[in-house]
């Protein structure tokens, strides 16, 4: 064969190989064939999850968010789209969680005595006693519960909603290259929730949740999916659970009760003063609260500052809270008064003009009914 | 590795076969660019040791033919044999022995003449790394650029550029040298030097192919000629043969023009007057017969000289004939004459 033709053919093969390579890379990581595992009943599986001992592990959690909520600057794990959380645990309470942002990162380290929260964008470190961050994960808003730790959060979810749900085992799956059972929680037909089902992949060996997906009525793609993309079970490098504040960083040691420079603490304060109450049961649960106006304004202002990060700071002095809310939601009114309704694919939040707030994974009408009951 | 093996096999085969008489030859060469036929049915023979002049007006296909001869352009149809190797596969064997200057000299303006040659030399397969320095100096010397070698190519005159191109073709002793319009932009002295270089190469046994649209250049330096017109070879062969095949005439300088004419007509020899005498076409007669006739008639012959038809006439007739209706027969006549 003529050498030129050989060259052309070889080059064509090269082009095809390169394009194929790109195509393979573009494909989502192949789940592989479903592993064959011994049968297990749903009840036994749920029980083993609840009784599983915390293990030392390190891994990456992929968060796929399709909630339809507005982007929160600086925390991609909460915004629509895909993001990653990296976490390590030694199984005895020492934890390291990293939230990589576009070009920044927040790192949370709890070394057993002290908990540290580092924010690279602000070059700040928040120092707190051990355990004080536990109720609310660092950097995560509290009202929009997009869990990032499948181990703890899914376990709570399983326990809480078992009685209002049909619990079944729907085959097996491979998550983070580990065999897992697919546990499916379906709301009982009497429930009024907008959620269709919650799927939880449970590690066949460790019986810890590896992946959780929330599916809503009307779509096949999960509204939220949180799952390990990489998981190494076993002792982790001890240096991961140590943290020394970098030289140039501003270290703050906030009093938990007091408002702090940190926006998360401001939200916390707002919630503390709001006396949250729970309306309804099961899937229909609606969390209600009365937010003091100034706390809301404080929170909004911080959001604003975050949104326009950069050298020119301090511009968000007076923020029109109502205006900000109206950008996100639509105005509603009724016998209870008037307010703004923000809906997402997994539920909604209704903020009344007088500061009352209700939120839940329920249709609009349920929220409107609930807000009347808020004291 | 595989290439060198196959090359050895190829060369062994050719060594075993008949020795090629031609340094280069093409058969049925055709090149079509889009809908334009640049070269068509070119059967070119370059005998070994010859200095072949390729003659043709601009756009006649000279350069395209040369580029196909050197494997730069792939023919649409036809075959090329270079130093006994069929192209394109034989390129690696043949080209090291071929020096070429195609479509003007190509060098980097920011390098000096010497650096440019060094770069060209680094890619010459036949040059050992240790010989590069000397080979470059020799080539510069040969084309008379030694004094300007340290200057940047950017500042060279057209003639100097042309010489550097020639130097690059002469870096290694070559068996075939292809020069496309080598005297382009050269002053008369430069042209003479190029002619001398060609003569030297010829004497050393190299085969030379020179293309030009300048007739005088070809006539002065070539042993063989190929005339191209509109993409085809309209005539080729030894220069002397081509010129002799054409009927020549005898010019007789005489004051008695009328007497001479009548004497010749009486002898059935065709003649016509010209400025100083008569011109006799040597068709069906020879010079001695003509002179004898005139002398017998008592015509005073001051001078008689044979008028050799120049290449210019030949060229003009070939290219004009091509345009007329009888083109084919005209070409045929000439080609018969050359065989």
């Amino acid at each position: 064969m003529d050498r030129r033709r050989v060259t052309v053919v070889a080059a064509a093969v090269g082009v095809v190989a390169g394009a194929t390579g790109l195509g393979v890379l573009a494909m989502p990581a192949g789940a592989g064939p479903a592993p064959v595992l011994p049968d297990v009943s749903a009840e036994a599986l749920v029980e083993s999850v609840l009784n599983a001992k915390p293990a030392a592990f390190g891994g990456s959690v992929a968060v796929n968010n399709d909630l339809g909520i507005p982007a929160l600057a600086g925390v991609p794990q909460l915004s629509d789209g895909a993001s990653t959380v990296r976490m390590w645990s030694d199984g005895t309470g020492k934890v390291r969680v990293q939230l990589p942002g576009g070009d920044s990162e927040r790192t949370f380290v709890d070394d057993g005595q002290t908990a540290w929260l580092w924010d690279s964008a602000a070059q700040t470190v928040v120092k707190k006693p051990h355990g004080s961050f536990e109720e609310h994960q660092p950097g995560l808003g509290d009202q929009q519960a997009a869990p990032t730790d499948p181990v703890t959060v899914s376990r709570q979810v399983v326990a809480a909603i078992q009685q209002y749900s049909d619990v079944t085992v729907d085959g097996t799956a491979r998550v983070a290259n580990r065999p897992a059972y697919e546990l499916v929680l379906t709301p009982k037909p009497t429930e009024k929730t907008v959620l269709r089902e919650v799927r939880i992949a449970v590690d066949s060996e460790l019986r810890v949740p590896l992946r959780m997906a929330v599916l809503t009525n009307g779509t096949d793609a999960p509204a939220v999916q949180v799952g390990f993309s990489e998981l190494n079970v076993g002792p982790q490098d001890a240096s991961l659970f140590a943290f020394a504040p970098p030289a140039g960083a501003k270290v703050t040691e906030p009093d938990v009760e007091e408002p702090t420079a940190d926006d998360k603490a401001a939200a916390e304060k707002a919630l503390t003063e709001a006396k949250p109450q729970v309306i309804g049961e099961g899937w229909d649960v609606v969390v209600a609260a009365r937010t003091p106006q100034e706390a809301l304004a404080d929170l909004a202002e911080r959001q604003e500052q975050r949104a326009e990060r950069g050298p020119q700071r301090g511009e968000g002095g007076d923020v029109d809270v109502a205006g900000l809310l109206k950008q996100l939601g639509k105005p509603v009114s009724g016998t209870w008064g008037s307010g703004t309704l923000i809906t997402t694919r997994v539920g909604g939040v209704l903020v009344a003009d007088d500061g009352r707030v209700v939120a839940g994974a329920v249709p609009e009408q349920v929220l409107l009914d609930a807000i009347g009951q808020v004291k | 590795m595989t290439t060198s093996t196959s090359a050895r096999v190829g060369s062994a085969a050719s060594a075993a076969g008949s020795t090629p008489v031609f340094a280069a030859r093409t058969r049925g060469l055709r090149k079509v660019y889009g809908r334009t036929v640049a070269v068509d049915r070119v059967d070119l023979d370059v005998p070994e040791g010859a200095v072949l002049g390729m003659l043709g007006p601009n756009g006649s296909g000279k350069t395209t033919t040369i580029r196909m001869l050197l494997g730069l352009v792939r023919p649409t149809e036809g075959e090329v044999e270079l130093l006994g190797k069929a192209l394109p596969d034989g390129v690696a064997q043949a080209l090291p022995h071929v020096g070429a200057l195609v479509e003007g000299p190509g060098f980097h303006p920011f390098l000096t003449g010497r650096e440019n040659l060094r770069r060209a030399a680094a890619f010459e397969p036949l040059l050992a790394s240790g010989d590069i320095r000397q080979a470059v100096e020799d080539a510069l010397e040969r084309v008379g650029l030694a004094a300007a070698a340290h200057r940047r190519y950017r500042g060279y005159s057209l003639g100097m550029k042309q010489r550097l191109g020639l130097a690059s073709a002469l870096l290694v002793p070559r068996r075939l040298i292809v020069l496309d319009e080598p005297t382009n932009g050269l002053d008369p002295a430069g042209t003479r030097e190029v002619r001398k270089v060609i003569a030297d190469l010829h004497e050393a046994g190299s085969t030379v192919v020179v293309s030009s649209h300048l007739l005088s250049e070809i006539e002065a330096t070539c042993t063989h000629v190929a005339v191209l017109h509109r993409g085809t070879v309209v005539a080729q062969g030894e220069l002397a043969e081509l010129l002799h095949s054409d009927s020549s005439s005898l010019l007789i300088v005489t004051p008695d023009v009328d007497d001479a004419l009548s004497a010749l007509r009486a002898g059935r020899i065709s003649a016509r007057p010209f400025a100083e005498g008569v011109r006799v076409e040597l068709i069906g007669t020879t010079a001695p017969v003509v002179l004898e006739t005139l002398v017998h008639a008592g015509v005073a012959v001051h001078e008689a000289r044979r008028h050799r038809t120049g290449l210019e006439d030949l060229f003009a007739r070939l290219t004009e004939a091509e345009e007329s209706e009888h083109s084919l027969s005209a070409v045929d006549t000439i080609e018969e004459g050359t065989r």
Partner: protein
Amino acid sequence: MTALVAARAPLGRQLRSELRWILRRPRTVIGLASLCLVPILAGVGLWFATDGDGPAGPGLAAIIAGNGLVLPVFTLFLALPLLLPLVGAIWAADGLAGEAQHGTLRGLLLSPVGRIRLLAIKSFGVAIMSLVAVTLIAVVGVITGVVLFGGEGMLTLSGSTLSFGEGLGRIALTIALVTVQVWGVAAIAMAISACTEHPLVVMAATMAGVIVFAVLGLFSALDWLHPYLITSAWEGMIDVMRDPLPTEQLWRGTVVAGCYVLIGLSLAAMRLATKDN
């Protein structure tokens, strides 16, 4: 008549000649000198920005105070979206289109140099010069960074501090990763370069491509397309500044660039093999 044996000039000699030719080009020297200015300008700019209170800027700039080893990484990421692709495109443009423009490509082919070998030599020149350009930025960046900001170690985005040696290791890794990305762009530029005689066309087409890719990367409606775009891989490169080092995106980006190199060089080979000169 003696038998003709296929002969080739030694590859080492050809490669040396290629590098010497590139380095003798005035444009090369001027270009490399201007690249040295980038980290210096970036460093001085950030130095003034850190003067005030709080972080000097978003992203990596936020952690640069007292952390000079971040400057080379910062500068490389600053240069990656436009400047470095331009540099790669220039090398590639001069490599084939530039030689064709001067008529020297024909000379090389007549030497003869096999067309695939010629592509290999040219790719080598482009690859080495891209590495030189990236390394130069990094080296000047390290010096500028240490002088302006000091730094015994390297503070990562994750808040941990690496030793000076580890920091240099991260910089070396960044050099390697960024260089591979430049190769990806340069290989495509090489394919364009094989198709034209005008170096400016190569540069313009390459930069237009990079900009179009970057714009396509902004539309979330084109999510499915993003993994195919080399520019999309560049954002993930900042992972090099996280600790512990997450390798997934870095590998992915490198493999994407590798695919671009394969595609670009294959197209260039295809064009060179069939081209009339």
